[in-house]
């Protein structure tokens, strides 16, 4: 007892005055506030990791919560972290998953997770009317809504007769390198676009195109929203981005025009979002209910009306014929090529 008192005296606990004690207790209050997550979970809840923009995803998840009474706990990704934060988190948590459902804004990362055994299997009845090409044959994921790839053009800086029709127009000498921008094709939908080009144009042609982009000195930006913002303000004349980004610029009244590139040749490119069950999900029953809800026609229509999706997976527009399984196979090689071209 004496030894213990001595130790307490030494560290100052027994001799502390009131103000010191208050200061010490106050310094730990933030931790108490910050630990609300430690409260015991209610009996029914579901955890969803999503890379869909929070302003679009949150109302849908809240609607699910109000309809089912199941507590919804979401974690959102951001474009600034290249929408790979959650994928890395899911992989790191694979042995002890916290997430039940992964709702992604694109497809390649989902297929990468499937390859690494992070996803479980669930075939939702609401996925029955989704075409086979837009759902996994093993039942690991299903498509939800399509976003298109578009050239966003500043209509104040580009005349009507000069409007580009193809991504190859970026290489046209009449456009200066500082007039044109793309997002770094190492992640997100720009990477998916690059992989699709490898599939449709052939490896050599696609690689030559990106090498030419690099050699010309076209602006390689941080993300699709940066491309949108720079085209909207007129700092760029044109750039490659997604339909949701382009539409948000148009909604804000920016002088921009959307052009679906290479439509005559290939029909354009549309990239599906995906919904997947996480393997060994802690709340599998609730997770299946959420997947059913997300894959419903109602959610898809809501997101189309909000201009997040361009089209439904149930009635896809004419587009480049794509085998997503083949695309997934190609990703490691395309990633290496893109790293070599743009990072070395």
């Amino acid at each position: 007892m004496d030894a213990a008192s001595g130790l307490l005296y030494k560290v100052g606990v027994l001799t502390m005055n009131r103000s010191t004690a208050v200061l010490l207790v106050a310094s730990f209050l933030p931790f108490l506030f910050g630990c609300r997550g430690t409260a015991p979970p209610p009996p029914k809840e579901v955890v969803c990791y999503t890379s869909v923009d929070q302003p679009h995803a949150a109302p849908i998840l809240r609607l699910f919560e109000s309809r089912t009474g199941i507590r919804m706990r979401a974690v959102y990704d951001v474009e600034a972290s290249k929408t790979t934060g959650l994928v890395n988190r899911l992989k790191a948590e694979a042995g002890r998953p916290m997430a039940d459902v992964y709702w992604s804004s694109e497809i390649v990362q989902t297929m990468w997770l499937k390859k690494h055994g992070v996803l479980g299997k669930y075939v939702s009845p609401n996925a029955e009317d989704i075409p086979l090409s837009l759902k996994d044959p093993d039942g690991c994921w299903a498509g939800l809504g399509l976003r298109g790839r578009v050239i966003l053009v500043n209509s104040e800086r580009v005349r009507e007769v000069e409007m580009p029709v193809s991504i190859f127009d970026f290489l046209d000498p009449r456009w200066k390198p500082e007039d044109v921008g793309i997002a770094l094709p190492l992640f997100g939908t720009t990477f998916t676009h690059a992989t699709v080009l490898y599939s449709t144009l052939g490896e050599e042609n696609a690689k030559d195109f990106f090498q030419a982009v690099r050699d010309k000195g076209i602006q390689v930006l941080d993300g699709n929203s940066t491309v949108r913002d720079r085209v909207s303000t007129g700092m760029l004349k044109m750039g490659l981005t997604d339909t949701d980004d382009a539409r948000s610029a148009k909604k804000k009244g920016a002088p921009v025009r959307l052009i679906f590139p290479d439509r005559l040749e290939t029909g354009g490119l549309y990239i599906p979002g995906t919904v997947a069950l996480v393997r060994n999900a802690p709340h599998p029953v609730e997770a299946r209910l959420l997947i059913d809800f997300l894959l419903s026609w109602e959610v898809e229509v809501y997101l189309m009306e909000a201009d997040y999706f361009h089209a439904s997976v149930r009635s896809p527009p004419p587009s480049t014929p794509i085998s997503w399984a083949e695309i997934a196979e190609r990703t490691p090689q395309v990633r290496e090529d893109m790293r070599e071209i743009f990072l070395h």
Partner: protein
Amino acid sequence: MTRRKTVSAAFRRLFPTLPLLPYFILAGAPLAFLAADAALHPPWLECPLLPAGRIVRLFLNSVALSLAVGIVGTAWGALAALCLAGCRNGIRRLGVLLLPLPLLTPPYILAVTWWSLLDRGTLIGRLFLPVMQAGGTLSDALGAVLLLSFGWFPIPALLLLSAMRRLPGDVLDAARIQAGQGAVWIRGLIPLLAPSALAGGALLSCLTLTAYGVPALFQVRTLTLEMHAEFSSSGDPVRAAIPAVPLLLAAGAVLWVLHLLARGNGPPSTPPSGGWPEGLHQPPCIAIPVRAVGLITLALLCTPVLLMAAKAGSWRQVVRSGVDSWNEISVSLALGAGAAILCTICALPLARLLTRRPSPGTLVLGLLPLAIPAPLFSLGVLGIWSPLLAGTHLPLVVALAGRLMPFALLSQFVIFRTLDPLLFEMGELHPVPPTRRLLRVTLPLLLPGVAVGGAVTFALTLGDLGSSVLLDPPGAGTFPVKLFNLLHYGAGDQVAGMALCILPIVYLLWGLAVLLAKGWHR
């Protein structure tokens, strides 16, 4: 008996390093986890250890940006500090209270605010957009330098103000009788204030070396951006961490040079007397630019708030944004406060060790977390702490505190360097418990460093994305994640509303901290 003696001797040898344990648990353990993971997964052998080609160019970009920010920010901070030092007491007190506001404003909020000026609908946008279009990457780089300097100039300014308070007024007065004002400035004041200015510049440079948000927004290609890109594309922590080596060495070199330059210099080690020396009276050639910078700075301090108010449109929008985001705001403030307190406490023993026995090894070890990108550091925290603390905010607090601790360490180290070790040794002679000595002697003496370090870590936690995305417990996201989502969505009015809600709270907390510190100091 002999064995007991050996154990006792070993314990006594280890005892001085025991206070460093929290530092190593917070900052070292996640890095050790990453290193062990790398050792178990040998693909790292394929990675080039020596930087080449593009990496070298990016490294040079990073160094150039950090030097530019260091120089511009320090010059700005020095002029602002001189301006405040020459003011009357009341104005000076108000100035000291207002000065850290840009530091407490997350850099991305500053960036978004200034960026909004370039909207095509505004007069400034119409004037400057063609210039920026013509300037290309140069105008981007210039924008990044100005923004980062504006955000961080309070660091050298506060350090210089602290040094000015310790200047020996009577000695300076005596010198002014012997020589002219110019000579007193050149041969007396500038050498005495130089270490604090250098320390401020070094801190700015280190901060810039690892900055992510502003260079990304302005598209200035730096090595930090490359590390994020590498990690995002490969998902391989080791591959992404290798480019960190030159950054770490650069930061270590900057600080080591600073240490060598500052050795034996600095203002006299007397604690501040409460008054301001008369010797700070400025000759007209200094007074005019100083006052001009003071006025410009004052205008710039108010501009972001006014711009955001204009962007938000109406007070209803501000209230609605505040109510919608209250959960995220409260979580972020709590996390920031927790991480800042944890940093301050855990960095103290290492700062002291570094002052007493400075060595490049200790310095690099202390700076190591700074060179590791947030997502990588957070993966280490996830691996170590998640099994124990999953579902809580504690892993996020640990990640933020561990990664940002070098800033607290550097701020405290800078102040330790300028204080006489005898002051601490005298404190140790009193037979009082160590906590009382810490709270009554050490921390009050280090107050400027503790305040700067705390404010920097707090502000940086409010801007953190890399750790938040990986470690947020489900259902309780942070403010920056929501804000960046809204930015991506293009909801400028909501972003402005949210920023207008968080800023007064942050400023209020700063005011309370200043009042608390003043009471404590007395």
